[in-house]
């Protein structure tokens, strides 16, 4: 969209009248939207029709095509130059701390060194992450929204919100044995939470920050940044004994991801269950001949168990299921299970089972052995699931199976104070031109987007 607007601007520079507060129009005009934008698709389709019908227009269309391609090249070059300039300006701005000013003169960035020390006073400020720290704490990968925010703003910082602090304090109270000194009643703690809310309200980012905090505290965190990957891709085989579907490729990836951060912790945690691990069909290798289970040696650690699953494809799914039981029995350190795109586990998977010669039956996510092991929240372990609107699951029922009734927490979109902090941050990061920034303009953007974070990020660059 931005490229099209710049392209249009390069062709015809247009002068628009300034916004008149006394005018009758209720919607303020963001002047970069010109007639060409609204006619973009129609003009493109008309162009396509003209090409088909009129042979004489072929010459014209080729000329237009060359003009378009040259304009695109100019736009791309402009983009690259703008990007490089912006990087240079940002590097110069780093030397000037007077620019780190938020709304009402408050500091834009918090000086608190860690997520665990953040307090209510730090809300509506930005917390900076170091690249090594973030990649180290979340080696499984960042949520898409977070990665996009870092890419657009060219800084690894997230807004500190009250919702994150409440979530963090909830889990802190579960683990912390000392009672609160406030003197009042302890607020209700919830061990299982489902983060829900409108599109782009910050569910995945909140979950990622919670995981980061928990790992800083030394917890054992089972983090799944993309729950959809458990129900899509790879191979799937029905296990005749359990009746569930094994996904050995997915199981191996799950174990490898779990090992990425938790390697040293798992080497110290012993196994509690020494029953043999049932074997299934391997990925592309069939069944193991004559063997249907694998023994777990006495004295093994969780690391050894996971290595069995990674090395032997037949045992991968069995190890994942066993791991879930083992995580419930770990008492040495707090354990947190954090699942993003959790709503994908309440709908159908990509897989289907042939029923007749011509028809197939879709397989629900709960029929997969790995999902079946981790989906339920009816237990005494700490678990957080975040819904995602990026995966086209659709609307789910309010009372989900295997989920406590009071587990849902609705995260709200940005309020006015948070939007002010966000807009000041984007100004600092040169997403907004300083001469175009005003309270009136950022409020227009906020009301247009209705607090949607991704939309605010796309609209602020159009401020004039």
């Amino acid at each position, binding site marked *: 969209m931005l490229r099209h607007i710049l392209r249009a601007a390069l062709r015809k520079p247009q002068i628009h009248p300034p916004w008149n507060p006394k005018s009758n129009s209720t919607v303020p005009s963001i002047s970069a939207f010109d007639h060409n934008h609204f006619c973009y698709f129609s003009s493109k389709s008309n162009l396509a029709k003209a090409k088909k019908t009129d042979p004489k227009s072929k010459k014209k269309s080729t000329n237009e095509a060359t003009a378009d391609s040259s304009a695109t090249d100019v736009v791309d070059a402009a983009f690259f130059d703008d990007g490089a300039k912006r990087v240079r300006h940002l590097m110069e701005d780093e030397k000037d701390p007077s620019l780190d000013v938020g709304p009402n003169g408050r500091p834009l960035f918090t000086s608190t060194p860690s997520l665990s020390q953040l307090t209510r006073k730090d809300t509506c400020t930005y917390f900076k992450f170091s690249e090594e720290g973030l990649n180290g704490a979340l080696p499984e990968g960042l949520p898409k929204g977070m990665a996009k925010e870092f890419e657009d703003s060219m800084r690894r910082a997230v807004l500190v919100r009250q919702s994150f602090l409440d979530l963090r304090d909830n889990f802190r109270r579960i683990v912390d044995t000392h009672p609160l000194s406030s003197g009042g009643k302890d607020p209700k703690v919830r061990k299982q939470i489902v983060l829900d809310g409108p599109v782009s309200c910050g569910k995945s980012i909140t979950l990622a920050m919670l995981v980061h905090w928990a790992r800083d505290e030394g917890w054992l965190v089972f983090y799944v940044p993309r729950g959809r990957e458990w129900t*899509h*891709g790879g*191979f*799937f085989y029905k296990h005749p004994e359990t009746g569930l579907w094994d996904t050995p490729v997915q199981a191996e990836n799950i174990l490898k991801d779990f090992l990425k951060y938790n390697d040293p912790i798992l080497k110290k945690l012993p196994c509690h269950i020494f029953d043999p691990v049932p074997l299934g069909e391997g990925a*592309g290798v069939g069944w193991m001949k004559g063997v249907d289970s694998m023994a777990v040696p006495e004295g093994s650690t969780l690391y050894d168990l996971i290595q069995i699953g990674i090395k032997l494809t037949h045992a991968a799914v069995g190890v994942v299921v066993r791991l879930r039981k083992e995580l419930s029995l770990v008492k040495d350190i707090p354990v947190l299970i954090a699942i993003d795109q959790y709503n994908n586990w309440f709908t159908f998977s990509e*897989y289907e089972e*042939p029923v007749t010669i011509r028809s*197939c039956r879709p397989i629900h996510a709960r029929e997969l052995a790995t999902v079946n092991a981790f989906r339920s929240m009816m237990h005494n372990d700490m678990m957080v699931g975040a819904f995602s609107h990026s995966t086209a699951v659709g609307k789910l029922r309010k009372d989900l199976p295997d989920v406590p009734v009071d587990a849902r927490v609705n995260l709200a979109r940005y309020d006015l104070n948070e939007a002010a902090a966000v807009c000041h941050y984007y100004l600092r990061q040169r997403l907004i031109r300083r001469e175009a920034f005003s309270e009136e303009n950022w409020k227009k953007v906020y009301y247009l987007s209705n607090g949607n974070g991704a939309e605010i990020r796309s609209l602020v660059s159009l401020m004039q």
Partner: protein
Amino acid sequence: MSYISGARLVADEQVRIASTKMDGIGPKKAIQVRYRLGISGNIKIKELNKYQIDQIEQMIGQDHVVHWELKRGERADIERLISISCYRGIRHQDGLPLRGQRTHTNARTCRKLIRK
């Protein structure tokens, strides 16, 4: 590059699309074969090992008529019509349309054999 039932399968193609390159296997049968072997939608031919390709070949060979067997069957049906000298057989021999189409004009596709 691997061959299954006489069809050359491109390694970079998804299994569900590459399978349709075989004579006698269309999109529906390709999906059936895939799901019976537990192969999901985004798996490509290059990600399959020899065991899985043999499984595909075995399954197709058992349950479906493909490649030269299909062509042989079609040819046998045409020769049967010719041998019993029925109207359709005579039309096959003459290289003319046999499903009631006009021959005053058009019918160029059927007449390719005569023109040759």
